[in-house]
């Protein structure tokens, strides 16, 4: 039974990583940039929901929607002000700008909301579903997280394969120039990608803080790095890859904590990543890139 409990909490943590990783992977796929500020958008989303529900007593659903709205706007503003002027610049310049944005968000959060940790009240209550005669409790947060992750995954796959905007995104990620020639508005497409990624980040932030209820201005950085790892693990740029990578990473992390060592769990997670990349250099579901000579 303990084994099953670990599997379930692993999938739950993995679902959060997967939702964040989806944001990373979509932005990477289309803009070819590592958006290091993504982790901090998560933090902003969590704060917005925290204040909406705890301070103003709003309904948690409205709180989540508000967080998504704020993060969507934030993501689009960041893209417009900081990344769009650098569309033609070398990738390292964009990376450093993203780091600048990350510093900015962390410090702005510290000024606005102080660095005192906030104790998060879960948006779905603290109860648990008792299975197998009470031996296998599954908290509501876990259930909501897993359901949300699967729903987002299904929704995104349908969106990218069926809708016009989704097809435009895939076209842009393959070849921006050709997409533009076919009449796709590349700038709008990239902007929409950032909007979706940031809205997902808001959901991830709320779910993360519901499961691990301590919120500080740096809450987003480590899950951000882990989710980025998950995206690479599954093959960056691939939507199912981010999902698979996130879930696997979550399970590995919980197992490493449970069976090997709590302190070394991060090291083990990263060691598994290295081994996977050495065997399969483009990640689990990444397409092998052929080299032109």
């Amino acid at each position, binding site marked *: 039974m303990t084994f099953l409990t670990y599997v379930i909490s692993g999938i739950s943590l993995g679902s959060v990583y997967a939702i964040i990783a989806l944001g990373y992977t979509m932005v990477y796929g289309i803009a070819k940039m590592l958006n290091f500020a993504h982790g901090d958008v998560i933090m902003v989303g969590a704060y917005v929901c925290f204040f909406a529900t705890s301070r103003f007593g709003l309904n948690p659903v409205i709180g989540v929607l508000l967080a998504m709205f704020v993060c969507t706007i934030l993501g689009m503003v960041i893209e417009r002000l900081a990344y769009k002027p650098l569309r033609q610049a070398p990738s390292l310049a964009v990376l450093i700008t993203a780091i600048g944005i990350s510093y900015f968000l962390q410090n702005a959060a510290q000024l606005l909301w102080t660095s005192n940790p906030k104790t998060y009240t879960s948006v779905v209550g603290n109860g648990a579903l008792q299975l197998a005669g009470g031996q296998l409790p599954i908290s509501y947060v876990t259930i909501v997280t897993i359901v949300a992750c699967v729903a987002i995954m299904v929704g995104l796959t349908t969106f990218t394969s069926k809708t016009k905007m989704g097809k435009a995104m895939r076209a842009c990620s393959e070849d921006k120039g050709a997409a533009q020639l076919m009449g796709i508005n590349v700038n709008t497409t990239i902007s929409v990608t950032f909007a979706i990624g940031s809205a997902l980040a808001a959901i991830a932030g709320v779910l993360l803080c519901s499961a691990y209820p301590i919120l500080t201005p740096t809450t987003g950085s480590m899950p951000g790095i882990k989710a980025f790892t998950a995206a690479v693990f599954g093959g960056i740029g691939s939507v199912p890859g981010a999902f698979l990578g996130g879930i696997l990473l979550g399970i590995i992390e919980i197992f490493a904590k449970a069976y090997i060592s709590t302190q070394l769990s991060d090291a083990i997670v990263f060691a598994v990543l290295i081994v996977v990349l050495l065997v399969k*250099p483009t990640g689990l579901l990444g397409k092998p890139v052929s080299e032109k000579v």
Partner: protein
Amino acid sequence: MTMKIKKMSKYTRRNFITYVMLAILFVVVQALVSTGNVSSLIKGQLVPICAYVVMAISLNLTVGVLGELSLGHAGFMSVGAFSGVVMATCLQTVVPIAWLRLAIAIITGGVFAAMVGVIVGIPVLRLKGDYLAIVTLAFGEIIKSIINNLYIGLDSGGLHMSLLTDKLNLAEGGKTILGGPMGATGVSSISTFTMGMILIVVCLTVIFNLVNSKSGRAVMALRDNRIAAESVGINVTKYKLMAFVISASMAGMAGTLFAMNYSTVVASKFDFNTSILVLVFVVLGGLGNMRGSIIAAAALTILPELLRQFQDYRMLAYAIVLILVMLATNNPTLSAAFRRFFGSFRRKKPTSDAKGGAAQ
């Protein structure tokens, strides 16, 4: 004098200017310190600045000259810092002269970091681009986790080590040097500004000579076009690994210098944020441009201190400055406007291409 400088080759002249800049800086700072014109805040930053400058030029070797993005450079700094601290503590009574002990510790730090560099480099350098970057990040985090759980003690029987538990079985009178998450405590802080400057000059000389040697040209050929370089018989693994290991060992030496400046050092100081900080120095200074790295590292280490009057807003201001500088230097419209504005002062051709040209 001016005639002589003009006769020198392009590279020699550039290197010469860098050395002269360092010498002037050293003399000015020494003069200011001895006359008491430097605030204690800045004075405390002198050794860290030197350490960051060495970190920046060493990362510039990896990113600018070798052309591979590394996000885990602080890991090597950490290895160097703690191996150096352990060595210095062991030699506490054997070598009473502080500067000699520091020098031995720095060399030890460099050697250990180089060994870790080989272990990390062999798998990492097989990957490409962003995948390579993420694996260096992973290695940096692994090194941090391990050192965070490593316990080292010293007694009459020699060194004792253990991972995860603090049961070192030390004999009577033994002392713990490295206490896991508590870090290394009771380090005798013997780092000096002079030693920092010597380290900078040594590392610079190594890099300048490397870049202008056959090996350095092979490394840069690999950066510019790996397939073409391979087809003319350049051994990819050998040269990539060589540059990477030299870079790692310099980071290790910088780590020792940095650690020996404080009485307490913890492994979590050398985390992802430190790696990123050094990367910011390198990119702002210009890829492959060593002088730029030195200036950027020094300026950006002092900047938060100078912004202290803005108190809580200083890191916010730092972030905004960083974003604006990146926008101003990399956006075609903005940088053209800047060039028009400053065009009357300097007539230098802009080098803003992706992989920064030859090392300067």
